């Protein structure tokens, strides 16, 4: 157990950086699914079996499945030139990692709450999600970015979970699921109306 936890966290970090470097939507969705599975493994490590099951179901299976279906329903080209160059994205992710490590080193207040490397991993995941949201112009990768950012926040909350708060985590998962569901519908409409899911074209509403 003790050796497994750092390995999972490391894999999460690696997964994040690969996400930033990935250009094709299919790969992005698969990596999100993998992230869900990693989160499940992490929860199992920390003995939250019920929640692990829910996370596996929603983040590992349902959400990627949903995104895959949305992607298949699109007629438009699904690989677009990102707003931020992918290499820059990876660099930004690295900078996020370094920043969160620096932050962890400065915040030596609660050594017993967070296992080593959990705080920086969570923050880096959050940063990577935000970079995806900002740096990509396809609607679907923005949703994936949202999902990844949410994963990071979820990860940060894992050590604080108590037995009494499982209902809240479940409600949160449900919320995220519905959010992605609604976004999926919106993307479907975007694909139909604009014949592309490039949100960089959204320029008609401005002052």
């Amino acid at each position: 157990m003790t050796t497994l936890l750092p390995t999972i966290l490391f894999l999460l970090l690696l997964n994040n950086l690969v996400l930033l470097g990935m250009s094709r939507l299919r790969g992005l969705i698969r990596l999100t699914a993998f992230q869900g599975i990693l989160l499940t493994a992490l929860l199992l490590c920390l003995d939250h079996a019920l929640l692990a099951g829910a996370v596996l179901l929603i983040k590992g299976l349902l959400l990627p499945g949903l995104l895959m279906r949305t992607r298949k329903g699109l007629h438009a080209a699904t690989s677009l030139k990102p707003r931020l160059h992918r290499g820059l994205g990876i660099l930004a992710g690295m900078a996020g990692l370094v920043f969160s490590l620096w932050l962890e080193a400065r915040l030596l207040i609660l050594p017993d709450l967070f296992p080593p490397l959990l705080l920086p991993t969570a923050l880096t995941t959050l940063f990577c999600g935000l970079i995806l949201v900002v740096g990509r112009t396809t609607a679907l990768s923005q949703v994936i970015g949202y999902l990844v950012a949410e994963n990071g926040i979820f990860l940060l909350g894992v050590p604080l979970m108590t037995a009494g708060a499982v209902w809240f985590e479940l409600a949160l998962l449900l919320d995220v699921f519905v959010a992605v569901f609604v976004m999926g519908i919106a993307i479907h409409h975007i694909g139909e109306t604009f014949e592309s899911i490039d949100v960089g074209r959204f320029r008609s509403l401005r002052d």
Partner: protein
Amino acid sequence: MLEALLFLPLCAGLLMLAVGNAALCRGLLPLTGLAHAALSLLTAARVAHGETPTALGGLLAPDPLGALFLTLASLLFLAASIYALAYLREEESIEERTCIQDGRSFTNAPERRFTACLCFFLAAMSLVTTTPHLGALWVGIEATTLSSAPLIYFHRHQRSLEATWKYLIICSVGIALALLGNILLSVAFYAPAGGGGSEMPAGDMNQMGWFIQHAHTAAQPWLKAAFIFLLVGYGTKMGLAPLHNWLPDAHSQAPSLVSALLSGALLNCALLGILRGHQITLAAGLGGFSGGLLVFFGLLSLITAAIFIVGQGHYKRLLAYSSVEHMGILALGTGLGGLAAQGALLHAVCHSLTKCMLFLLAGNILARYHTFSSYDVRGLRWIMPVTGALWTAGFLAIAGSPPFGVFVSEFLILKGMLAGGSYGVAVVYLTTLAIIFVGMSVAVLRMVQGNRPADMPQNQREALLNVLPPLVLGLAVLTLGLCVPDWLWHFLQRGAALIGG
């Protein structure tokens, strides 16, 4: 009874989705609004008498602050649902719909989905305003985003889709940051096992009460960080500058009654999220820090709104920026505390009523003139006498001129500022209000005045359901301007006492 607040609109929405015929939807919608308004007024009365009603094991337990916003949301929903009857009938009668801006034809979303989402929206807002659990609050606010996104996309054309997408993504990411704030809050209150601190009892839903009670034991840096994230997260949803980008788009593209609800009820709910954080920092003795941030963002919103309102040709965007302005005033007032906080709560009430009225009127104007541009609307007082008069009155009210309620509340906030000795803030506050007054009056008067346009159909009467809700709301604001009833004032004071007023 409290459960009904949550489950009544939820069940009504599900019923609409399941059955789905237009008559049922249209009948059920105002009925739900009416029942919900009655229930929430009852709840507010109980809270005003010092009771603390609880339900669902403590998950729902409104305090004066929450009860105030609950009642507001509920009343606005009632007004909007009555307006919706006329609106939906009119929408149904339109044969061919074309987008006003680019002329392409579009379709509407199914009506039952629209009414059901309205009900879900109400349920989510009820959860937000009644729960003392910050996690449930978060879930509720995210639920308001998700249930209102389909409402914005009622008219299925490119622009509304664009607005919906921006709304969904920006608000979802923002609210995710608020979740981070929640987690940081738990970290701040984390007590290592056996370290002498007390752990929050499992299964206790009254998180707010527990946090406030133990605020002095919290780790202050984490608490500050938590407040910042709560402010940024819920501030996005509330439309504080510079996080307000989605707001004018969504408010201008949504059907008018949805804009009215978004602006009058939803923004208040997001404000409530920030105020919850403010309550905790106040209890921890960090009121200066959180208040200062609120004042800063409030001023920033005021200035931003002033810049965008001047010369704004799109009258629904004008109203949206006015919402940004008033959210700024609310943040300013609550941040300053004292009398200003009491004024801010009164302001929340007056702003919601006025803004709801104005958006409903904007819907009437849009339906008649088929344009968003205030330059193309002429002679409102000839074509639509009631709407025109109300539009003028609403403008005077929202811009803060006497004898309307907004004047009283803005004046109270100013008094609070001067009493607190923040003269610089007062100067900026007055200047921006003056600029906004001028900026808005140009557009509004241009619309009301002018000759009767020749190409408009003459003598078309205004439907009663279209003007009754705005009229009632306007009268309410006027009453609040003439005298604030004692019971309301006591209630507001009790609410303000929670946020340092």
